[in-house]
Protein backbone atom coordinates (compact mmCIF):
# COMPACT_ATOMS: atom_id res chain seq x y z
CA UNK A 1 0.00 0.00 0.00
CA UNK A 2 1.31 3.43 -0.89
CA UNK A 3 2.30 5.74 1.91
CA UNK A 4 0.43 8.91 2.77
CA UNK A 5 2.78 11.46 4.31
CA UNK A 6 1.27 13.52 7.12
CA UNK A 7 3.18 16.59 8.32
CA UNK A 8 2.93 16.68 12.12
CA UNK A 9 1.86 19.81 14.01
CA UNK A 10 3.23 19.75 17.52
CA UNK A 11 4.34 22.01 20.34
CA UNK A 12 7.47 20.62 22.02
CA UNK A 13 6.45 17.07 21.16
CA UNK A 14 2.82 17.44 22.19
CA UNK A 15 0.90 16.49 19.03
CA UNK A 16 -2.01 18.69 17.99
CA UNK A 17 -5.49 17.35 17.47
CA UNK A 18 -5.42 18.25 13.77
CA UNK A 19 -2.56 15.78 13.23
CA UNK A 20 -4.62 13.00 14.80
CA UNK A 21 -7.41 13.98 12.40
CA UNK A 22 -5.05 13.85 9.41
CA UNK A 23 -3.69 10.43 10.45
CA UNK A 24 -7.26 9.16 10.81
CA UNK A 25 -8.01 10.44 7.31
CA UNK A 26 -4.71 9.06 5.93
CA UNK A 27 -5.64 5.56 7.12
CA UNK A 28 -8.56 5.59 4.67
CA UNK A 29 -6.24 6.55 1.79
CA UNK A 30 -3.15 4.39 2.28
CA UNK A 31 -0.46 3.69 4.85
CA UNK A 32 0.04 6.70 7.14
CA UNK A 33 3.61 7.93 7.63
CA UNK A 34 4.15 10.88 9.92
CA UNK A 35 6.78 13.51 9.18
CA UNK A 36 8.03 15.06 12.38
CA UNK A 37 10.39 18.04 12.37
CA UNK A 38 11.78 20.30 15.08
CA UNK A 39 13.42 20.01 18.46
CA UNK A 40 11.94 18.14 21.46
CA UNK A 41 10.12 15.71 19.22
CA UNK A 42 10.66 12.42 21.05
CA UNK A 43 7.43 12.54 23.02
CA UNK A 44 5.41 12.83 19.82
CA UNK A 45 6.28 9.40 18.41
CA UNK A 46 4.04 7.35 20.72
CA UNK A 47 1.07 9.59 20.07
CA UNK A 48 1.57 9.29 16.29
CA UNK A 49 1.75 5.50 16.56
CA UNK A 50 -1.45 5.50 18.60
CA UNK A 51 -3.28 7.22 15.72
CA UNK A 52 -2.01 4.86 13.06
CA UNK A 53 1.39 6.09 11.85
CA UNK A 54 3.17 3.00 10.51
CA UNK A 55 6.36 5.00 9.99
CA UNK A 56 7.58 8.17 11.63
CA UNK A 57 10.22 10.11 9.69
CA UNK A 58 11.96 12.42 12.12
CA UNK A 59 14.19 15.38 11.28
CA UNK A 60 15.65 16.84 14.44
CA UNK A 61 17.05 20.34 14.53
CA UNK A 62 16.60 24.00 15.30
CA UNK A 63 16.63 25.04 11.63
CA UNK A 64 12.90 24.44 11.40
CA UNK A 65 12.31 27.13 14.00
CA UNK A 66 15.12 29.42 12.88
CA UNK A 67 14.09 29.85 9.26
CA UNK A 68 10.72 30.50 7.66
CA UNK A 69 8.93 27.50 6.08
CA UNK A 70 11.61 26.38 3.59
CA UNK A 71 13.58 23.87 5.76
CA UNK A 72 10.41 21.83 6.31
CA UNK A 73 9.91 21.86 2.53
CA UNK A 74 13.44 20.50 2.07
CA UNK A 75 12.63 17.54 4.33
CA UNK A 76 9.27 16.81 2.72
CA UNK A 77 10.72 17.06 -0.78
CA UNK A 78 13.46 14.55 0.11
CA UNK A 79 10.87 12.14 1.56
CA UNK A 80 8.62 12.49 -1.49
CA UNK A 81 11.59 11.67 -3.74
CA UNK A 82 12.60 8.68 -1.60
CA UNK A 83 9.22 7.11 -0.86
CA UNK A 84 6.98 8.24 -3.75
CA UNK A 85 3.94 8.59 -1.47
CA UNK A 86 0.43 8.59 -2.92
CA UNK A 87 -0.26 11.98 -1.31
CA UNK A 88 0.98 14.48 1.26
CA UNK A 89 -1.47 15.83 3.85
CA UNK A 90 -0.75 19.06 5.71
CA UNK A 91 -2.92 21.01 8.16
CA UNK A 92 -4.57 24.00 6.53
CA UNK A 93 -2.98 26.67 8.68
CA UNK A 94 -1.35 29.80 7.25
CA UNK A 95 2.10 28.21 7.51
CA UNK A 96 0.84 24.79 6.43
CA UNK A 97 -0.50 26.24 3.19
CA UNK A 98 2.82 27.95 2.48
CA UNK A 99 4.69 24.69 3.03
CA UNK A 100 2.24 22.94 0.70
CA UNK A 101 2.63 25.59 -1.99
CA UNK A 102 6.42 25.48 -1.94
CA UNK A 103 6.46 21.69 -1.86
CA UNK A 104 4.21 21.69 -4.93
CA UNK A 105 6.73 23.85 -6.79
CA UNK A 106 9.66 21.74 -5.60
CA UNK A 107 8.08 18.44 -6.63
CA UNK A 108 6.28 19.81 -9.70
CA UNK A 109 2.96 18.73 -8.23
CA UNK A 110 -0.55 20.05 -7.88
CA UNK A 111 -1.74 21.51 -4.59
CA UNK A 112 -5.24 21.75 -3.15
CA UNK A 113 -5.85 23.91 -0.10
CA UNK A 114 -8.56 23.96 2.57
CA UNK A 115 -9.98 20.51 1.89
CA UNK A 116 -12.71 19.37 4.26
CA UNK A 117 -12.57 15.77 3.04
CA UNK A 118 -10.43 13.52 0.85
CA UNK A 119 -11.79 10.32 -0.68
CA UNK A 120 -9.91 7.13 -1.50
CA UNK A 121 -9.31 8.21 -5.12
CA UNK A 122 -7.67 11.37 -3.67
CA UNK A 123 -10.50 13.67 -4.67
CA UNK A 124 -10.63 16.61 -2.29
CA UNK A 125 -13.82 18.30 -1.18
CA UNK A 126 -13.38 22.05 -0.76
CA UNK A 127 -15.85 24.55 0.51
CA UNK A 128 -15.30 27.84 -1.36
CA UNK A 129 -16.75 31.33 -1.49
CA UNK A 130 -17.34 31.32 2.25
CA UNK A 131 -19.08 27.95 2.11
CA UNK A 132 -21.63 28.84 -0.58
CA UNK A 133 -20.15 26.36 -3.07
CA UNK A 134 -18.81 22.84 -2.61
CA UNK A 135 -16.12 21.78 -5.06
CA UNK A 136 -14.55 18.41 -5.80
CA UNK A 137 -11.01 18.67 -7.15
CA UNK A 138 -8.20 16.37 -8.10
CA UNK A 139 -4.52 16.84 -8.62
CA UNK A 140 -3.59 15.80 -12.15
CA UNK A 141 0.16 16.26 -12.01
CA UNK A 142 2.81 14.89 -9.64
CA UNK A 143 2.08 13.96 -6.02
CA UNK A 144 -1.21 15.35 -4.68
CA UNK A 145 -0.40 17.83 -1.91
CA UNK A 146 -3.51 18.58 0.06
CA UNK A 147 -4.05 20.86 3.02
CA UNK A 148 -6.94 19.78 5.22
CA UNK A 149 -8.87 22.08 7.54
CA UNK A 150 -8.80 21.34 11.25
CA UNK A 151 -12.06 19.86 12.57
CA UNK A 152 -12.86 18.10 9.28
CA UNK A 153 -12.49 14.50 10.52
CA UNK A 154 -13.17 13.03 13.96
CA UNK A 155 -9.85 11.68 15.27
CA UNK A 156 -10.00 7.97 16.10
CA UNK A 157 -7.08 6.06 17.62
CA UNK A 158 -5.91 2.92 15.85
CA UNK A 159 -2.47 1.82 17.03
CA UNK A 160 0.26 1.02 14.51
CA UNK A 161 3.99 0.37 14.70
CA UNK A 162 5.15 3.98 14.58
CA UNK A 163 8.65 2.93 13.56
CA UNK A 164 10.94 5.90 13.88
CA UNK A 165 13.52 6.61 11.17
CA UNK A 166 15.71 9.64 11.59
CA UNK A 167 16.45 11.55 8.41
CA UNK A 168 19.13 14.14 7.82
CA UNK A 169 18.47 16.48 4.94
CA UNK A 170 20.90 19.12 3.75
CA UNK A 171 19.14 22.46 3.53
CA UNK A 172 19.23 24.42 0.32
CA UNK A 173 21.15 27.64 0.38
CA UNK A 174 17.96 29.57 -0.39
CA UNK A 175 16.15 27.90 2.51
CA UNK A 176 18.09 29.80 5.15
CA UNK A 177 17.58 33.28 3.74
CA UNK A 178 14.63 34.32 5.92
CA UNK A 179 15.96 34.19 9.45
CA UNK A 180 13.68 34.17 12.52
CA UNK A 181 15.42 36.44 15.04
CA UNK A 182 12.76 36.46 17.74
CA UNK A 183 9.55 34.62 18.57
CA UNK A 184 6.81 36.40 20.47
CA UNK A 185 4.03 34.36 22.03
CA UNK A 186 0.86 36.21 22.96
CA UNK A 187 -1.40 33.39 23.96
CA UNK A 188 -4.50 33.59 26.10
CA UNK A 189 -4.00 30.15 27.53
CA UNK A 190 -6.28 27.53 28.98
CA UNK A 191 -9.02 27.43 26.35
CA UNK A 192 -9.41 25.06 23.38
CA UNK A 193 -7.74 26.20 20.19
CA UNK A 194 -9.96 28.32 17.98
CA UNK A 195 -9.85 26.15 14.85
CA UNK A 196 -10.17 22.92 16.83
CA UNK A 197 -12.95 23.88 19.23
CA UNK A 198 -16.43 22.38 19.10
CA UNK A 199 -17.90 25.66 20.36
CA UNK A 200 -16.67 29.19 19.62
CA UNK A 201 -17.93 32.29 21.43
CA UNK A 202 -16.96 35.53 19.67
CA UNK A 203 -17.05 39.20 20.50
CA UNK A 204 -17.04 42.23 18.18
CA UNK A 205 -17.09 45.98 18.38
CA UNK A 206 -20.27 45.69 20.46
CA UNK A 207 -18.31 44.50 23.50
CA UNK A 208 -17.01 48.06 23.69
CA UNK A 209 -13.46 47.47 24.92
CA UNK A 210 -10.95 44.95 26.25
CA UNK A 211 -12.81 44.60 29.56
CA UNK A 212 -16.01 43.87 27.62
CA UNK A 213 -14.44 40.57 26.54
CA UNK A 214 -14.90 39.45 30.14
CA UNK A 215 -18.54 38.49 29.55
CA UNK A 216 -17.55 36.71 26.32
CA UNK A 217 -14.83 34.72 28.09
CA UNK A 218 -17.15 33.79 30.96
CA UNK A 219 -19.70 32.41 28.52
CA UNK A 220 -16.94 30.56 26.66
CA UNK A 221 -15.72 29.00 29.90
CA UNK A 222 -19.22 27.92 30.90
CA UNK A 223 -19.45 26.06 27.57
CA UNK A 224 -15.83 24.85 27.41
CA UNK A 225 -15.51 26.96 24.26
CA UNK A 226 -12.79 28.88 22.44
CA UNK A 227 -12.97 32.67 22.19
CA UNK A 228 -13.00 34.43 18.83
CA UNK A 229 -13.13 38.07 17.78
CA UNK A 230 -14.09 40.22 14.81
CA UNK A 231 -11.53 42.34 13.02
CA UNK A 232 -13.01 45.46 14.61
CA UNK A 233 -12.10 44.01 18.01
CA UNK A 234 -8.59 42.85 17.07
CA UNK A 235 -7.78 46.06 15.18
CA UNK A 236 -8.76 48.04 18.27
CA UNK A 237 -6.33 45.91 20.26
CA UNK A 238 -9.08 44.51 22.52
CA UNK A 239 -8.08 40.93 21.71
CA UNK A 240 -4.95 39.44 20.05
CA UNK A 241 -5.03 39.13 16.26
CA UNK A 242 -4.72 35.36 16.23
CA UNK A 243 -8.24 35.10 17.63
CA UNK A 244 -9.69 36.93 14.63
CA UNK A 245 -12.33 34.96 12.73
CA UNK A 246 -12.95 35.70 9.07
CA UNK A 247 -11.44 36.36 5.70
CA UNK A 248 -8.06 37.39 7.04
CA UNK A 249 -8.37 35.54 10.31
CA UNK A 250 -9.16 31.93 11.12
CA UNK A 251 -11.79 29.90 9.35
CA UNK A 252 -13.83 28.01 11.91
CA UNK A 253 -16.59 25.45 11.45
CA UNK A 254 -17.60 24.45 14.99
CA UNK A 255 -20.78 22.72 16.07
CA UNK A 256 -21.87 25.99 17.69
CA UNK A 257 -20.83 29.60 17.04
CA UNK A 258 -22.14 32.41 19.25
CA UNK A 259 -21.58 35.93 17.84
CA UNK A 260 -21.91 38.75 20.34
CA UNK A 261 -21.93 42.37 19.21
CA UNK A 262 -20.83 41.39 15.70
CA UNK A 263 -22.67 42.89 12.72
CA UNK A 264 -21.88 40.03 10.31
CA UNK A 265 -19.84 41.72 7.58
CA UNK A 266 -19.05 39.55 4.57
CA UNK A 267 -15.41 39.22 5.67
CA UNK A 268 -16.46 37.97 9.08
CA UNK A 269 -18.96 35.51 7.62
CA UNK A 270 -16.29 34.10 5.33
CA UNK A 271 -14.68 32.58 8.41
CA UNK A 272 -17.70 31.22 10.25
CA UNK A 273 -20.69 30.63 8.06
CA UNK A 274 -20.20 26.89 7.72
CA UNK A 275 -20.63 26.54 11.49
CA UNK A 276 -23.34 23.95 12.23
CA UNK A 277 -25.44 26.10 14.54
CA UNK A 278 -25.14 29.88 14.79
CA UNK A 279 -26.46 32.09 17.58
CA UNK A 280 -26.32 35.89 17.49
CA UNK A 281 -26.81 38.55 20.12
CA UNK A 282 -27.00 42.07 18.73
CA UNK A 283 -28.94 45.16 19.72
CA UNK A 284 -29.59 46.11 16.10
CA UNK A 285 -32.50 44.11 14.60
CA UNK A 286 -31.16 44.92 11.12
CA UNK A 287 -27.68 43.43 11.69
CA UNK A 288 -26.87 41.04 8.82
CA UNK A 289 -25.62 38.41 11.29
CA UNK A 290 -29.29 37.58 11.99
CA UNK A 291 -29.62 36.32 8.38
CA UNK A 292 -27.28 33.48 9.32
CA UNK A 293 -28.48 32.84 12.84
CA UNK A 294 -30.40 29.71 13.77
CA UNK A 295 -31.32 31.58 16.90
CA UNK A 296 -30.93 35.30 17.50
CA UNK A 297 -31.68 37.67 20.33
CA UNK A 298 -32.11 41.37 19.69
CA UNK A 299 -30.82 42.96 22.84
CA UNK A 300 -27.92 44.35 24.84
CA UNK A 301 -25.20 41.73 25.11
CA UNK A 302 -24.28 42.98 28.58
CA UNK A 303 -27.77 41.90 29.72
CA UNK A 304 -28.25 38.79 27.60
CA UNK A 305 -24.81 37.15 27.79
CA UNK A 306 -24.30 37.20 31.60
CA UNK A 307 -27.84 35.88 32.01
CA UNK A 308 -27.08 33.07 29.56
CA UNK A 309 -23.84 32.22 31.38
CA UNK A 310 -25.62 32.13 34.74
CA UNK A 311 -28.38 29.97 33.27
CA UNK A 312 -25.90 27.48 31.80
CA UNK A 313 -24.00 27.25 35.09
CA UNK A 314 -27.30 26.76 36.95
CA UNK A 315 -28.43 23.97 34.64
CA UNK A 316 -25.04 22.28 34.84
CA UNK A 317 -25.80 22.18 38.57
Amino acid at each position, binding site marked *: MAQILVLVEHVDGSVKKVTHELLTLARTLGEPAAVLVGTDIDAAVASLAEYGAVNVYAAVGADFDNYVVAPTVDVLAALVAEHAPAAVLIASTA*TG*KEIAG*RLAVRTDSGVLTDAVDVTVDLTATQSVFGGAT*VVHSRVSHGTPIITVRPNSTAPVASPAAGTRTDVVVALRESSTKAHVTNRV*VAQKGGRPELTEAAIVVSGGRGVGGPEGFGVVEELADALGAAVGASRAATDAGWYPHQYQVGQTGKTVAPQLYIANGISGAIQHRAGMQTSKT*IIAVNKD*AEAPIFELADYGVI*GDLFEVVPQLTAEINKRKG
Partner: protein
Amino acid sequence: MKIVVCVKQVPDSWADKKLSPSDNTLDRASVDRVINELDEYAVEEALKIVEAQGGEVTVFSMGPDDAADTIRKALSMGADAGIHLVDDALHGSDAPATSYAIATTLADRDFDLLIFGSESTDARCSVVPAMVAERLGLPQLTYANKVEIDGATVRIQRQTDYGYDEVEASTPAVVSVVEKINEPRYPSFKGIMAAKKKPVEKLSLVDAGIDAARVGLANSWSQVADFSERPPRAAGTVVKDEGEGGVNIADFLASQKFI
Protein backbone atom coordinates in the same frame (compact mmCIF):
# COMPACT_ATOMS: atom_id res chain seq x y z
CA MET B 1 14.42 51.09 -3.54
CA LYS B 2 12.71 49.41 -6.49
CA ILE B 3 9.48 47.67 -5.60
CA VAL B 4 7.14 45.51 -7.64
CA VAL B 5 3.65 44.93 -6.19
CA CYS B 6 1.51 42.04 -7.42
CA VAL B 7 -2.18 42.89 -7.58
CA LYS B 8 -5.02 40.66 -8.64
CA GLN B 9 -8.41 41.55 -9.98
CA VAL B 10 -11.18 39.71 -8.12
CA PRO B 11 -14.97 39.75 -7.86
CA ASP B 12 -16.26 42.34 -5.43
CA SER B 13 -16.26 40.87 -1.89
CA TRP B 14 -19.99 41.45 -1.53
CA ALA B 15 -20.89 39.83 -4.86
CA ASP B 16 -22.34 36.34 -4.99
CA LYS B 17 -19.42 34.44 -6.46
CA LYS B 18 -20.18 31.46 -8.65
CA LEU B 19 -18.32 28.97 -10.81
CA SER B 20 -19.34 28.83 -14.43
CA PRO B 21 -20.85 25.48 -15.41
CA SER B 22 -19.07 25.43 -18.79
CA ASP B 23 -15.52 24.95 -17.46
CA ASN B 24 -15.72 25.08 -13.63
CA THR B 25 -13.72 28.31 -13.44
CA LEU B 26 -14.72 31.45 -11.60
CA ASP B 27 -17.51 33.27 -13.40
CA ARG B 28 -15.88 36.70 -13.69
CA ALA B 29 -18.33 38.11 -16.22
CA SER B 30 -21.42 38.24 -14.01
CA VAL B 31 -19.91 40.18 -11.10
CA ASP B 32 -18.30 43.54 -10.47
CA ARG B 33 -14.55 43.23 -10.52
CA VAL B 34 -12.26 45.15 -8.22
CA ILE B 35 -8.69 45.13 -6.98
CA ASN B 36 -8.20 42.40 -4.36
CA GLU B 37 -8.64 44.28 -1.06
CA LEU B 38 -5.53 42.77 0.47
CA ASP B 39 -3.44 43.98 -2.44
CA GLU B 40 -4.36 47.60 -1.64
CA TYR B 41 -2.42 47.13 1.60
CA ALA B 42 0.52 45.86 -0.44
CA VAL B 43 0.38 48.93 -2.70
CA GLU B 44 0.11 51.23 0.31
CA GLU B 45 3.11 49.65 2.01
CA ALA B 46 5.19 50.01 -1.16
CA LEU B 47 4.21 53.66 -1.48
CA LYS B 48 5.08 54.34 2.16
CA ILE B 49 8.52 52.77 1.76
CA VAL B 50 9.26 54.76 -1.39
CA GLU B 51 7.96 57.97 0.16
CA ALA B 52 10.31 57.46 3.09
CA GLN B 53 13.43 56.60 1.14
CA GLY B 54 12.92 57.17 -2.55
CA GLY B 55 12.58 54.68 -5.36
CA GLU B 56 9.81 53.51 -7.62
CA VAL B 57 6.79 51.28 -7.46
CA THR B 58 5.71 49.10 -10.38
CA VAL B 59 2.44 47.19 -10.18
CA PHE B 60 2.12 43.84 -11.86
CA SER B 61 -1.10 42.04 -12.63
CA MET B 62 -1.88 38.91 -14.55
CA GLY B 63 -5.48 38.82 -15.71
CA PRO B 64 -7.93 39.47 -18.53
CA ASP B 65 -8.16 42.77 -20.43
CA ASP B 66 -10.04 44.64 -17.77
CA ALA B 67 -7.45 43.78 -15.11
CA ALA B 68 -6.00 46.97 -16.60
CA ASP B 69 -8.55 48.77 -14.35
CA THR B 70 -6.97 47.16 -11.32
CA ILE B 71 -3.54 48.36 -12.43
CA ARG B 72 -4.97 51.87 -12.97
CA LYS B 73 -6.41 51.83 -9.48
CA ALA B 74 -2.95 51.14 -8.04
CA LEU B 75 -1.45 53.80 -10.29
CA SER B 76 -4.03 56.30 -9.07
CA MET B 77 -2.98 55.55 -5.50
CA GLY B 78 0.52 56.63 -6.51
CA ALA B 79 2.41 53.74 -8.12
CA ASP B 80 4.65 54.79 -11.01
CA ALA B 81 4.18 52.18 -13.73
CA GLY B 82 2.36 48.97 -14.56
CA ILE B 83 2.99 45.59 -16.12
CA HIS B 84 -0.05 43.73 -17.42
CA LEU B 85 0.35 40.09 -18.36
CA VAL B 86 -2.67 39.30 -20.48
CA ASP B 87 -3.20 36.31 -22.73
CA ASP B 88 -6.23 34.11 -23.31
CA ALA B 89 -3.99 31.09 -22.79
CA LEU B 90 -3.69 32.04 -19.10
CA HIS B 91 -7.40 31.53 -18.40
CA GLY B 92 -7.98 28.94 -15.68
CA SER B 93 -4.40 28.88 -14.38
CA ASP B 94 -4.13 27.41 -10.87
CA ALA B 95 -1.62 28.36 -8.18
CA PRO B 96 1.39 26.48 -9.62
CA ALA B 97 0.67 27.94 -13.07
CA THR B 98 0.04 31.45 -11.72
CA SER B 99 3.20 31.42 -9.63
CA TYR B 100 5.15 30.14 -12.62
CA ALA B 101 3.80 32.94 -14.84
CA ILE B 102 4.52 35.62 -12.22
CA ALA B 103 8.00 34.31 -11.46
CA THR B 104 8.92 33.98 -15.14
CA THR B 105 7.72 37.47 -16.00
CA LEU B 106 9.52 39.10 -13.09
CA ALA B 107 12.67 36.94 -12.85
CA ASP B 108 14.88 39.27 -14.86
CA ARG B 109 13.43 42.53 -13.61
CA ASP B 110 15.42 44.64 -11.28
CA PHE B 111 13.68 44.89 -7.90
CA ASP B 112 14.57 44.98 -4.21
CA LEU B 113 11.17 43.97 -2.93
CA LEU B 114 8.35 41.99 -4.47
CA ILE B 115 5.26 42.70 -2.38
CA PHE B 116 2.03 40.66 -2.39
CA GLY B 117 -1.24 40.72 -0.54
CA SER B 118 -1.50 37.80 1.88
CA GLU B 119 -4.48 36.29 0.11
CA SER B 120 -6.77 36.78 -2.85
CA THR B 121 -10.37 37.07 -1.73
CA ASP B 122 -11.63 34.77 -4.50
CA ALA B 123 -9.17 31.87 -4.45
CA ARG B 124 -8.28 32.31 -0.76
CA CYS B 125 -5.25 30.07 -1.17
CA SER B 126 -2.57 32.29 0.35
CA VAL B 127 0.03 30.29 -1.50
CA VAL B 128 1.17 32.37 -4.45
CA PRO B 129 3.66 34.58 -2.54
CA ALA B 130 5.44 31.57 -0.97
CA MET B 131 5.43 29.75 -4.32
CA VAL B 132 6.96 32.72 -6.12
CA ALA B 133 9.65 32.96 -3.40
CA GLU B 134 10.37 29.27 -3.97
CA ARG B 135 10.57 29.66 -7.74
CA LEU B 136 12.86 32.69 -7.57
CA GLY B 137 14.98 31.33 -4.70
CA LEU B 138 14.30 34.53 -2.72
CA PRO B 139 13.77 34.91 1.03
CA GLN B 140 10.14 34.57 2.06
CA LEU B 141 8.97 37.37 4.35
CA THR B 142 5.26 36.64 4.36
CA TYR B 143 2.25 37.56 6.55
CA ALA B 144 3.95 40.81 7.55
CA ASN B 145 2.09 43.13 9.87
CA LYS B 146 5.12 45.41 9.98
CA VAL B 147 7.96 46.00 7.51
CA GLU B 148 11.19 47.85 8.31
CA ILE B 149 13.94 48.59 5.81
CA ASP B 150 17.48 49.22 6.94
CA GLY B 151 19.76 49.48 3.92
CA ALA B 152 19.72 46.08 2.26
CA THR B 153 18.16 44.42 5.33
CA VAL B 154 14.42 43.90 5.58
CA ARG B 155 12.82 43.07 8.92
CA ILE B 156 9.21 42.05 9.29
CA GLN B 157 6.87 40.91 11.99
CA ARG B 158 5.39 37.70 10.66
CA GLN B 159 1.91 37.16 12.09
CA THR B 160 1.65 33.63 13.47
CA ASP B 161 -0.88 31.41 15.18
CA TYR B 162 0.64 32.19 18.55
CA GLY B 163 1.67 35.84 18.17
CA TYR B 164 4.42 36.89 15.81
CA ASP B 165 7.95 36.10 14.66
CA GLU B 166 10.54 38.72 13.91
CA VAL B 167 12.12 37.73 10.61
CA GLU B 168 15.07 39.22 8.81
CA ALA B 169 16.51 38.87 5.30
CA SER B 170 18.51 40.71 2.69
CA THR B 171 17.05 42.21 -0.46
CA PRO B 172 15.89 41.15 -2.96
CA ALA B 173 13.05 39.57 -1.01
CA VAL B 174 9.42 38.48 -1.35
CA VAL B 175 7.04 40.11 1.14
CA SER B 176 3.33 39.55 1.72
CA VAL B 177 1.30 41.83 3.95
CA VAL B 178 -1.75 41.34 6.17
CA GLU B 179 -4.46 43.91 6.63
CA LYS B 180 -3.17 45.01 10.04
CA ILE B 181 -0.15 46.69 8.44
CA ASN B 182 -1.59 50.02 7.31
CA GLU B 183 -4.67 51.85 6.09
CA PRO B 184 -4.69 52.06 2.27
CA ARG B 185 -5.18 55.58 0.91
CA TYR B 186 -8.02 56.58 -1.37
CA PRO B 187 -6.87 57.82 -4.76
CA SER B 188 -7.11 61.61 -4.99
CA PHE B 189 -8.67 63.30 -8.01
CA LYS B 190 -5.18 64.39 -9.01
CA GLY B 191 -3.96 60.82 -8.62
CA ILE B 192 -6.74 59.49 -10.83
CA MET B 193 -5.92 62.02 -13.55
CA ALA B 194 -2.18 61.36 -13.31
CA ALA B 195 -2.73 57.58 -13.53
CA LYS B 196 -4.14 57.92 -17.03
CA LYS B 197 -0.75 59.03 -18.30
CA LYS B 198 1.41 56.51 -16.48
CA PRO B 199 3.04 53.78 -18.58
CA VAL B 200 1.59 50.26 -18.57
CA GLU B 201 3.54 47.57 -20.37
CA LYS B 202 1.26 44.95 -21.90
CA LEU B 203 2.82 41.52 -22.24
CA SER B 204 1.66 38.31 -23.92
CA LEU B 205 2.98 34.87 -23.03
CA VAL B 206 5.57 35.12 -25.78
CA ASP B 207 6.69 38.59 -24.62
CA ALA B 208 7.13 37.30 -21.09
CA GLY B 209 8.92 34.12 -22.12
CA ILE B 210 6.24 31.89 -20.61
CA ASP B 211 5.86 28.32 -21.86
CA ALA B 212 2.23 28.01 -23.00
CA ALA B 213 2.28 24.31 -22.10
CA ARG B 214 2.62 25.17 -18.41
CA VAL B 215 -0.29 27.57 -17.94
CA GLY B 216 -4.04 27.73 -18.47
CA LEU B 217 -6.89 25.47 -17.51
CA ALA B 218 -5.86 22.38 -19.48
CA ASN B 219 -2.27 22.50 -18.22
CA SER B 220 -2.99 23.26 -14.60
CA TRP B 221 -1.64 20.89 -11.98
CA SER B 222 -5.14 20.26 -10.55
CA GLN B 223 -8.66 20.23 -11.89
CA VAL B 224 -12.11 20.91 -10.50
CA ALA B 225 -14.13 17.76 -11.20
CA ASP B 226 -17.53 19.14 -10.26
CA PHE B 227 -19.21 21.61 -7.95
CA SER B 228 -22.55 22.24 -6.36
CA GLU B 229 -24.09 25.19 -4.62
CA ARG B 230 -24.99 24.68 -1.02
CA PRO B 231 -28.56 25.65 -0.22
CA PRO B 232 -28.66 28.91 1.73
CA ARG B 233 -29.07 28.54 5.48
CA ALA B 234 -32.71 28.20 6.50
CA ALA B 235 -33.95 31.28 8.31
CA GLY B 236 -33.79 30.89 12.07
CA THR B 237 -35.75 32.34 14.96
CA VAL B 238 -35.00 35.86 16.10
CA VAL B 239 -36.55 37.14 19.33
CA LYS B 240 -36.38 40.48 21.09
CA ASP B 241 -34.92 40.48 24.57
CA GLU B 242 -37.75 41.17 27.01
CA GLY B 243 -35.58 40.42 30.01
CA GLU B 244 -35.38 36.70 29.31
CA GLY B 245 -33.04 36.73 26.28
CA GLY B 246 -30.29 34.74 28.02
CA VAL B 247 -32.76 32.15 29.29
CA ASN B 248 -34.28 31.92 25.79
CA ILE B 249 -30.87 31.05 24.34
CA ALA B 250 -30.27 28.51 27.12
CA ASP B 251 -33.60 26.87 26.22
CA PHE B 252 -32.56 26.75 22.57
CA LEU B 253 -29.16 25.27 23.49
CA ALA B 254 -30.86 22.66 25.64
CA SER B 255 -33.25 21.78 22.81
CA GLN B 256 -30.20 21.24 20.55
CA LYS B 257 -28.46 19.18 23.28
CA PHE B 258 -25.57 21.63 23.68
CA ILE B 259 -26.27 21.83 27.41
